[in-house]
């Protein structure tokens, strides 16, 4: 198999989108992907997250490092956030005379969880996050997918994680918005709509073979199966729609992990690291396969005075100039021109670098 190597010289990088699917705390396995991108100095253009993936995207988009995200998860994700029952709603499930359950209800009171999110994100707004961050939610009334791109991060993350019937939906933009799992568990289509060239999608799965016991276990298994089918259908649609490459990374877990199982975080991140290790060749192939040498830009660079050349200690990827606006408008695939001083990935053998496509 070819060893993927991003060749040196003047390159055009693809627009890279990272999509994190639903999965509660298991979505923290994505931290391994962000570590990988940081190590390879590959810039990310867009983050799209759903539910647990929304939380991870929002934290990275807010500027926290993967290590900080993990540490904050260890300290802030406590079982007490998910242990405050709303008894009126709970009883309302069984009888409307005992309690009340409607579309705005949830079995759990959301106050502690929402406060924790506000402490984490403060007044930060989605439109301020970098990379640009989009969060998948579902309109409770229509079942329609609603992608949030503006508003308070804390509210948007809550809405994306508000899993029916555990948490009540959030009232945002004139709609009741709940967990994105019900409309796009792995929202790849959104990244395609935003014209990403290479899309890395992480799908977190529990491959539990034991028979479910009890109402909630059976209910969750049903939701999980439905979600799998929905994801596969949408992935198939994505294949038809997308112009370049989607790398789907499945992160498998062999046992059930609850949102409050913070003691599992190190194991979750390790699980993510193993999954990324398995797919890093595909990821780098996808990026290298897109990159093309622009001879015209190369010629322009030849004329650049010596003192404008990047210093030897400059970052590996250096934006040197935008492709001219006209070309950029007509060909969204080319985002920027970058100068690679050395290959981000060193081939493990003496095979020549991959030729430009």
């Amino acid at each position, binding site marked *: *198999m*070819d060893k993927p190597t991003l060749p040196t010289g003047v390159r055009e990088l693809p627009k890279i989108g990272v999509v994190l699917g639903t999965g509660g705390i298991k979505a923290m396995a994505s931290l391994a992907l962000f570590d990988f991108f940081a190590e390879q100095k590959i810039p990310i253009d867009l983050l799209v997250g759903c539910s647990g993936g929304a939380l991870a995207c929002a934290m990275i988009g807010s500027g926290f490092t993967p290590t900080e995200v993990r540490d904050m998860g260890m300290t802030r994700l406590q079982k007490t956030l998910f242990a405050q029952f709303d008894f009126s709603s709970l009883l309302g499930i069984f009888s409307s005379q005992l309690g009340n359950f409607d579309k705005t209800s949830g079995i759990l009171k959301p106050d502690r969880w929402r406060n924790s999110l506000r402490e984490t994100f403060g007044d930060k707004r989605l439109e301020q996050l970098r990379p640009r961050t989009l969060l998948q939610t579902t309109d409770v009334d229509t079942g329609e997918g609603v992608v949030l791109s503006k508003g308070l991060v804390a509210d948007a993350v809550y809405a994306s994680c508000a899993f029916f019937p555990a948490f009540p939906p959030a009232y945002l933009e004139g709609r009741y918005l709940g967990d994105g799992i019900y409309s796009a568990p792995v929202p790849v289509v959104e990244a395609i709509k935003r014209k990403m060239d290479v899309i890395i999608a992480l*799908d977190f799965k529990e491959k539990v073979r034991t028979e479910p016991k009890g109402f909630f276990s059976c209910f969750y298994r049903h939701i999980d199966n439905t979600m799998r*089918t929905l*994801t*596969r*259908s*949408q*992935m*198939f649609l*994505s*294949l*038809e729609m*997308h112009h*370049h*490459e*989607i*790398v*789907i990374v*499945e992160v498998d877990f062999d046992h059930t992990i609850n949102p409050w199982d913070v003691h599992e975080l190190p194991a979750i991140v390790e699980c993510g690291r193993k999954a990324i290790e398995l797919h890093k060749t*595909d990821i780098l*192939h*996808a990026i290298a*396969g*897109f990159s093309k040498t622009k001879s015209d830009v190369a010629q322009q660079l030849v004329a650049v005075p010596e003192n404008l050349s990047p210093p030897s200690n400059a970052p590996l990827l250096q934006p040197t100039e935008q492709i001219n606006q006209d070309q950029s408008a007509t060909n969204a695939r080319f985002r920027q021109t970058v100068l690679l001083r050395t290959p981000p990935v060193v081939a493990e053998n003496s095979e020549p670098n991959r030729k430009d*496509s």
Partner: protein
Amino acid sequence: MDVITEKRAEMIFISLTGRIDNQSAETLEENLSKIIAEGARQLIIDCSQIEHINNAGLRVLLNLAKQVLDFDGRIALHSPSQSARAIFDRTGFSLVSRIYETREEAIAGVAGSGVLSASRNDRRFVTK
């Protein structure tokens, strides 16, 4: 990526090997379109030697299936490698195209009757 084709009676046996990415997908599409243009209507595709197939490669297979079906032909994929199986599953490709476990099952699926009636190699060539 290599495409190995073999003709037996009315069936064309195609074996895909290696890595099918954006670059090789173009070559694959050209080769497969040529096979259809030459009149092939019953295609059996061996996926056991696929190292990796990306969405460009999957699109080629999907388009191939559409072309074959337009001519009232039949197509069957079989014996996917572990990597190909995982990709077919996670992309939903296996929702729209049945993936047979063995070559014999694929032949039976295409033949409809479940009886293999193909003769020995009539023609065999390798395209790289």
